[in-house]
């Protein structure tokens, strides 16, 4: 449809326009339209379930963060109150005591992680990962940099670094939290099985999760297209659910 406003002004515009058009070809790579369609549909389904990324996840994160912090603060407060013994402070002083207690960042050595299992659909793999604190109470960011790693420790897909300003929560001694890690589009060489998940802590050390029990779905996401980037991302940590509750 002709548009007078879109007509070139002069030969110079035609030449420059052609040059931009040629330059734009740098963004074109072969893709698999069917895989893209499936992926778009699957992403939307997951978003609808509140399982993966995007605005839905942001809301979920905020909610879970608030709930998790309340639970953790309460747990720490109760624990500290109990340590004070029969002559302990009144309840009104508990929060002040809790905030005054110095808590350091979690170290990789005190954390243990396990992939509880993988689920998958349409090119994605979503792993449920549990993280336990085997040491004393420590601070953990809600978001870490996730990695998909193989049995030899090779990083297959590296996730984005979290915002340094990502909220931090206190992980009580002996407590556990869970997250969902979503990975897609691995097109590299065959990795050593089984595939698992790692988390890079703020100090640069990595916590690698024990692989999921054998016999279940592998955590290796299928290749959707070599021209597209692979992804791995995690949800915010949430308090581990009781065995009978909804995961």
């Amino acid at each position: 449809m002709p548009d007078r406003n879109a007509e070139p002004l002069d030969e110079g515009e035609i030449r420059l326009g052609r040059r931009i058009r040629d330059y734009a070809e740098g963004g074109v790579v072969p893709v698999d339209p069917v895989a893209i369609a499936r992926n778009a549909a699957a992403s939307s389904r997951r978003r609808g379930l509140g399982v993966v990324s995007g605005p839905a996840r942001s809301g979920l994160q905020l909610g879970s963060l608030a709930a998790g912090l309340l639970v953790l603060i309460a747990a720490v407060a109760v624990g500290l109150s109990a340590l004070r013994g029969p002559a302990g402070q009144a309840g009104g002083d508990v929060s002040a005591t809790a905030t005054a207690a110095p808590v350091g960042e979690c170290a990789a050595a005190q954390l243990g992680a396990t992939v509880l299992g993988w689920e998958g659909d349409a090119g994605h793999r979503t792993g449920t990962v549990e993280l336990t604190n085997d040491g004393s109470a420590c601070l953990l960011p809600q978001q870490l940099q996730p990695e998909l790693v193989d049995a030899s420790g090779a990083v297959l897909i590296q996730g984005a670094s979290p915002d340094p300003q990502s909220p931090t929560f206190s992980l009580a001694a002996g407590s556990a939290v869970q997250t969902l890690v979503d990975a897609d589009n691995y097109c590299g060489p065959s990795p050593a099985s089984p595939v698992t998940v790692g988390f890079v802590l703020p100090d640069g050390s990595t916590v690698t999760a024990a692989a999921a029990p054998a016999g279940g779905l592998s955590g290796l996401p299928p290749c959707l297209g070599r021209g597209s980037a692979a992804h791995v991302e995690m949800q915010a940590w949430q308090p581990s659910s009781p065995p009978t509750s909804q995961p």
Partner: protein
Amino acid sequence: MEATIDDLTRRTTVSRAAAGDELAFARIVAAYHDDLARVAYVVCGDADLAQEAALAAWTIAWRKLGTVRDAERVRAWLVSVAANEAKRLAGSRGRRFVREVPIDAAFGSGGGDGGAADPARRVPAIDLANALTALSAADRTILALRYAAGLTSAEIGAAVGLSAPGVRARIARLLDRLRTELNDA
């Protein structure tokens, strides 16, 4: 990727895709994905990020295709979504990554014309990439929609919130600036 949406009875395909038909949606992807990638590449200057933006645009399209009333405008809508995603991704990554122009990717690495192997064609492409980098993301979006996607001024205006004459004037100004940067009288 040779399919054209004209061959596929656009209206029916779009309607079926909007209703959740993955195969119909895949036909739309086949027809327009390269356009989305071209536009995103001009906006963000990075081939990987451009693909990421295009894929993100398809996810949005899956959810919102039904909101596009006129099937004739689907392509313009899609490339506009891709441009916005490219702008968003480039902005969010900008704090962590320096925007770079890889020599091999600076000209036609995915275009299949062999331009990347021709040093005589690389340099102008790198010059153009640098000149584009000096523009704002909003200005690159307008140029991308005009020259990489071939949208009319009215379509661009609808996408970026300007009148058609306003788009035309902005493009003229941007071209003047590019000519100066590129010594292209």
